[in-house]
């Protein structure tokens, strides 16, 4: 025990005295949170819309106002040329063009007295919408926002007792009612950051001892691999937990991400997940002998799979079967499911047991491999 404590203490000193590892440990998570919280935003807003209003009545101008005041569209500077609507897309001056035909105002007034006109598909009531499909997500969002705005506008012109026939979908979004991407990103981000920091720092610390020759000295003294590994891992569990709390606090207090589940459960799974990440770091360090290689190896082995194959951004269900299969060995996949479940849905072990079990298995396997692969001899 005393040896482990001394190794851990020495490791803490290394962390505190090495500006590089401090930067990796503290600054990188904060920077990544900012980056994902602000720069990478999946919310589609501020769509550049140009409106060609042939009607030019108070009613048509009111509709235009509805678009620009909705919060989803902003006014494009350029005037669209209706004979060639693509031109404005090519120049990148707008991504949507709304065309209001002449007579729109009159038709809207007439609707009050003849509501059946609203159901006539040939009616001159129609407004035209051109969309730049190069960014498919934005185009789809613009189409659905437009249809909502126009329908609402039309309904207000109709007598209050008039009913649209047919099926209407009344949807309600649960768990993330504002559909904010930060709610979706922040829990995943905690998973990515824990994985990256833990693997990076442990692989570097062991590679550094090899590079500077201190490992050789340490191995001639009576320490066991278990003592070295446990002693080295303890400080990084604390660093990783600190990072986790940092990002979590940032997400909850700054970005307003809800936390509906149990803190204790998240802490428990967090520790299991950190063990998996630290073991990956140790495994990498057994394969390389310089800090540079360790850093590259750790980033490649953790960031890429954790971002691409975990459901962090890209939905696993839409991936080719081979990639889906591969995702089963990525610890972040399970932890992201767990942390989203706990934070956004208030899930407990009853619903998370499958992911939790898988995570526990992977962590134990990785830890066992790391302890086995870590050699007490050089060469």
């Amino acid at each position, binding site marked *: 025990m005393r*040896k482990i404590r001394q*190794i851990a203490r*020495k490791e803490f000193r290394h962390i505190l*005295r090495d500006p590089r590892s401090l930067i990796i440990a503290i600054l990188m998570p904060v920077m990544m949170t900012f980056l994902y919280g602000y720069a990478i935003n999946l919310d589609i807003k501020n769509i550049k819309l140009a409106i060609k209003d042939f009607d030019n009545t108070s009613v048509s101008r009111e509709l235009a106002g509805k678009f620009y005041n909705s919060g989803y569209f902003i006014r494009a500077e350029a005037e669209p040329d209706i004979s060639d609507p693509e031109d404005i897309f090519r120049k990148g001056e707008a991504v949507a063009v709304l065309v209001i035909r002449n007579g729109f105002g009159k038709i809207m007034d007439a609707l009050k007295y003849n509501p059946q006109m609203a159901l006539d598909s040939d009616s001159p009531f129609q407004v035209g919408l051109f969309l730049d499909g190069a960014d498919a997500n934005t185009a789809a969002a613009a189409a659905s926002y437009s249809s909502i705005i126009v329908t609402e506008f039309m309904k207000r012109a109709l007598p209050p007792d008039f009913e649209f026939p047919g099926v209407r979908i009344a949807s309600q979004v649960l768990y993330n009612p504002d559909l904010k991407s930060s709610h979706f990103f922040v829990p995943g981000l905690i998973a990515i950051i824990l994985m990256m920091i833990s693997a990076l720092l442990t692989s570097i610390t062991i590679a550094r001892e090899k590079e500077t020759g*201190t490992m050789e000295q340490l191995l*001639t*003294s009576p320490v066991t691999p278990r003592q070295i590994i446990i002693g080295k891992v303890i400080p990084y569990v604390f660093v990783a937990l600190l990072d986790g709390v940092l990002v979590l606090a940032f997400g909850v207090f700054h970005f307003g991400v809800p936390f509906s589940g149990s803190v204790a459960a998240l802490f428990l799974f967090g520790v299991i997940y950190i063990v998996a990440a630290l073991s990956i770091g140790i495994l990498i360090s057994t394969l390389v002998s310089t800090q540079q290689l360790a850093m590259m190896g750790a980033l490649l082995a953790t960031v890429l799979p954790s971002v691409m194959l975990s459901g962090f951004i890209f939905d696993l269900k839409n991936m080719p079967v081979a990639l889906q299969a591969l995702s089963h060995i990525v610890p972040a996949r399970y932890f992201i499911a767990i942390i989203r479940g706990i934070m956004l849905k208030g899930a407990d072990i009853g619903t998370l047991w499958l992911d939790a079990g898988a995570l526990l298995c992977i962590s134990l396997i990785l830890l066992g491999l790391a302890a086995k692969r870590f050699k007490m001899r050089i060469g």
Partner: protein
Amino acid sequence: MPNAVAIENLTRKFRDFTAVDSISLTVPQGEIFGFLGANGAGKTTAIRMLCGLLLPTSGKGDVNGFDIYKQNDEIKKTIGYMSQKFSLYGDLTAYENLWFYGSVYRMNKSLLKERIAELSDYLGLERFIRERTGPLPLGWRQRLALAAALLHRPKILFLDEPTGGVDPVFRRKFWELLYQLADDGTTLFVTTHYMDEAEYCRRISIMHRGKIIVMGPPAQLVKEYNKPDLQELFIDLIKERDNHAEN
């Protein structure tokens, strides 16, 4: 008296390359043994096998009576090792380094404190004991490395080119310390490139391409091969072997 080191036909191969080729030697307790050879002759590989850092490919070996294959843990408690490269922690102070290694050897705190004070007095470390070791001059760092290797009073000290890159005054002083240690009964197993240092040794061996080509007391070897000094003996022997191998 039992032998501190006894090896027989010890061999280590790295794929096709035989770094150490069936060497045999015994070093009695308390002896200063000089382990000489050109660069790449296999000295460091041999020392690493004796310290438990490398597993031999074949052959037998005992260190302090413990088997180098099976009793690694026992060996590690009774040896000290100082490598040719400074291998303490540069971002820790001299004191922190010593404290760390003392704890690794399970020395109790008050004993360790005493021992650090004793060694820093003996080796003149007080001046920089509270400084980080990274920026210190090489000679000081070597003294500190020696102190770290001596903390737990090892029965054998393995020194792999301990005086590489330090000035002659310090080398002289360093060897005075080694003599004192040997007088106290510590066995010293030293590699060196300096022939004046080799003359301080009770016995030497010269290694060439993984094999020990001669072994004996320095003065006796010089006489036997009829050379003016150890330097000439060393150079001529190596040259002779190299020519032989090329023809």
